[in-house]
């Protein structure tokens, strides 16, 4: 190996193969059976438990934990998956510290909640890894539904529709199903190909076909889908990315963080993936953290996350930010990018400090520069390919509480729709609930 974290410029193989493999291994290995029982025993089986209320999919958490404690993880998995069919990925990517575990009475009592996320993962993985699908389909209805997007919302919707006996075709723009689970989440959160294993397992219900490489607005039109199917569900997420809008944004080395993460997730040998010695990530959300941390894990020497507001305004959770800090990511807040400098390729990025003024955020006038071989933009994604006939607000498809859009026969959910929190778990909930409403509509 000739390269190291100190090698200048953008290059692959900064770390040896074994180190990279260890870096991108599972962040949290599975509980074994004994660990799971000990962790499960900490659950108080609360009355009308706050954790259930805090879960966007309203999983009966005390029940599934008691089922683990009673030595029946398969039953626990059934409890979880009947509410959230992507329970396995959600167990890995949910910000549990702000959801179920944040609501756990033991968090209030001792700052040490029941490890609900890891317990959920333990239970669901039992079924997934042996590809045992516990749900069965109702009798065929003859109804056909098109689902656009094979991400959490689309998969959640499709599975519930298939259970009801409908036939579902899922169209997805990418080469593989899974959406952000496959392309948009840090590798160490979805190690061992779990996103595809989960999709394969989910397909075990039957009645679902996935067609890849088809994007709405390019290869598909809503009108033709409406004509061809009995109902349409839109769950294609946010395919576009906000522009940086500063001088030098076109220079080599400046990329969208989502593209970097997607490339990383689709690279089998991560020692072939180039990364800069100096990396700057712009943004304050989960995507920014995932890009920054993974840059470090690939061997970037200096990685800095820069966010234009204060830490308290960042979308990334404290847990994620602490993880980033542990991995050696430097965090700078209250600074906005001004220009990227460099001769063809990025060499430095210039920031100006910000403060909140009477008319919102304003520049203080003070600037600084950071070395940057790579600049990853993680400043938000945008809706792309949505038909103009749909009512759109603030860049999202308007839906009601059960997922209906402004167009009859068209439902939507997930990141492309209003009402969610850009979380996997809310996307699954919206897909599931829309499926129930589609089923009700088609049953009339």
């Amino acid at each position, binding site marked *: 190996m000739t390269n190291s974290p100190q090698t200048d410029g953008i290059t692959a193989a900064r770390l040896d193969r074994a180190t990279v493999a260890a870096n991108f291994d599972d962040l949290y290995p599975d509980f074994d059976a004994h660990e799971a029982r000990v962790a499960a025993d900490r659950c108080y*089986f609360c009355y009308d438990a706050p954790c259930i209320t805090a879960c966007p999919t309203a999983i009966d958490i005390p029940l599934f934990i008691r089922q683990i404690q009673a030595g029946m993880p398969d039953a626990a998995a059934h409890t979880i998956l009947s509410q959230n069919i992507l329970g396995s990925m959600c167990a890995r990517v949910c910000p549990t510290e702000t959801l179920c575990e944040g609501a756990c*009475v033991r968090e209030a*009592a001792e700052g040490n909640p029941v490890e609900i996320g890891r317990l959920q993962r333990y239970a669901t993985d039992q079924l997934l890894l042996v590809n045992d699908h516990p749900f069965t389909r109702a009798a065929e209805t003859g109804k056909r539904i098109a689902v656009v997007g094979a991400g959490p919302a689309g998969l959640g919707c499709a599975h519930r529709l298939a259970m009801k006996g409908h036939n579902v075709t899922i169209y997805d723009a990418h080469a593989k199903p899974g959406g952000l689970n496959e392309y948009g989440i840090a590798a160490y959160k979805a190690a061992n190909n779990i996103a595809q294993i989960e999709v394969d397992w989910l397909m075990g219900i039957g009645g679902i076909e996935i067609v890849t490489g088809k994007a709405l607005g390019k290869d598909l039109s809503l009108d033709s889908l409406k004509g061809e199917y009995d109902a349409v569900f839109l769950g294609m997420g946010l395919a576009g990315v906000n522009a940086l809008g500063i001088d030098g944004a076109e220079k080599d080395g400046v990329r969208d963080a989502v593209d970097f993460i997607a490339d990383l997730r689709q690279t089998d040998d991560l020692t072939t993936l180039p990364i800069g010695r100096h990396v700057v990530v712009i943004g304050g959300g989960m995507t920014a953290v995932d890009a920054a941390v993974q840059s470090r894990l690939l061997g970037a020497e200096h990685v800095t996350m820069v966010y234009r507001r204060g830490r308290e305004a960042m979308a990334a959770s404290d847990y994620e930010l602490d993880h980033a800090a542990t991995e050696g990511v430097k965090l700078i807040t209250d600074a906005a990018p001004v220009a990227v400098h460099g001769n063809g390729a990025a060499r430095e990025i210039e920031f100006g400090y910000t403060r909140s003024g009477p008319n919102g955020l304003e520049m203080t006038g003070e600037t600084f520069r950071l070395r940057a071989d790579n600049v990853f933009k993680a400043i938000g994604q945008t809706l792309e390919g949505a038909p103009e006939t749909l009512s759109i607000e603030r860049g999202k498809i308007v839906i009601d509480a059960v997922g209906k859009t402004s167009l009859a026969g068209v439902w939507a959910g997930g990141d492309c729709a209003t009402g969610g929190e850009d979380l996997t778990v809310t996307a699954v909930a919206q897909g599931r609930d829309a499926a129930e409403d589609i089923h009700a509509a088609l049953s009339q």
Partner: protein
Amino acid sequence: MADLTTNFAGIKSPNPFWLASAPPTDKEYNVVRAFKAGWGGVVWKTLGSEGPPVVNVNGPRYGAIYGADRRLLGLNNIELITDRPLEINLQEIKKVKREWKDRALIVSLMVPCDEQSWIDILAHVEDTGADGVELNFGCPHGMAERGMGSAVGQVPEYIEMVTRWVKKHSRMPCIVKLTPNITDIRQPAEAAMRGGADAVSLINTINSITSVNLDSFAPEPTIDGKGAHGGYCGPAVKPIALNMVAEIARSAETAHLPISGIGGVTTWRDAAEFLALGAGSVQVCTAAMTYGFDIIKELNAGLSLWMDQKGLNSIDDVVRRAVPNVTDWKDLNLNYVTKAVINQDLCISCGRCYAACEDTSHQAIAMSPDRVFTVKDEECVACNLCVNVCPVEDCITMEQMQPGMVDPRTGEVVSDKHGDWTQHPNNPMVAAAE
């Protein structure tokens, strides 16, 4: 520092902690290790008659019940009395006693119910210099099928008869070990006393099946597809043992009979409780089998420190201290009124008190939409279930209503006088007496 030396029915030991007759006391090697660790005495594992020793199963002898994190709560065994030759046991007992004069060494015995068998074995034991004998009338498995162990302990007449033989043919202090597998523990205790026993020890193990294997559909531990009931011991049996010890201690007939308390003693606190209920020494087995002999350091240090804190100087100061407070239900003061009080600063809003009270008790806890739980005094009968299920220590307490206050549940003024069932107007026996 508190004096832990013990004089139990004339048997002296540096502390009240003896290892019970069981696998830990089966041979010199273990017993010496125990004495080195600091145990005050041992009851040597039960000897049988001369001749070929008993044989044990060659499959599992123990089964267990676990709490969280595989904490052993109850142990079940089907091991018999010693399966080593009598002569070897006797030689070792003699040697150990000679080398450990300050420790109590009692020999447990179980031979057939004929006088000559007892004459024979007692002569052997006398020769070892042991401090006393313990008659094993307790083991409920295996030997009981042969007319020994609990088969004797379940018939007071046999207990009396054998005890009488032992006292007739030996000058050694005689402790009779009782089985809990009976209906009234006072009957066998009184029988032992009539026979001349110097003391009783209890409880021996409880008939039990620990679990059923749901693949083979056989009881566990399973020997070649079958299982037999065994003897249950460990922390799970302590409440049963405490009650039986107390029953003997507070019975006028047996109040002066020394008791060696056995059953789930795991920490110094368990031992202190047995002593307070009338035991003059305690015997330990499961805790040693679970954690090894070094627990004696915790037992001695804990008991000693607690006694210092309480100003109790000797073991005698502790023994029977709680006995006067053990009474019959009919004598409990019905005018003592308490109500549950939930400390809102400590409450973590789990709602377990609510579920327990609402589903299974007296609907005396209210739950607000924001999960604040409060006691409805007008419904609370002070059953204590909320206290028992609350995961937070001292969060829910039972607070006494002062005399003169009106109990909102009954509408009656709380009396400052003692009033129990024997005087209560609802008691038909009171009316009959008038």
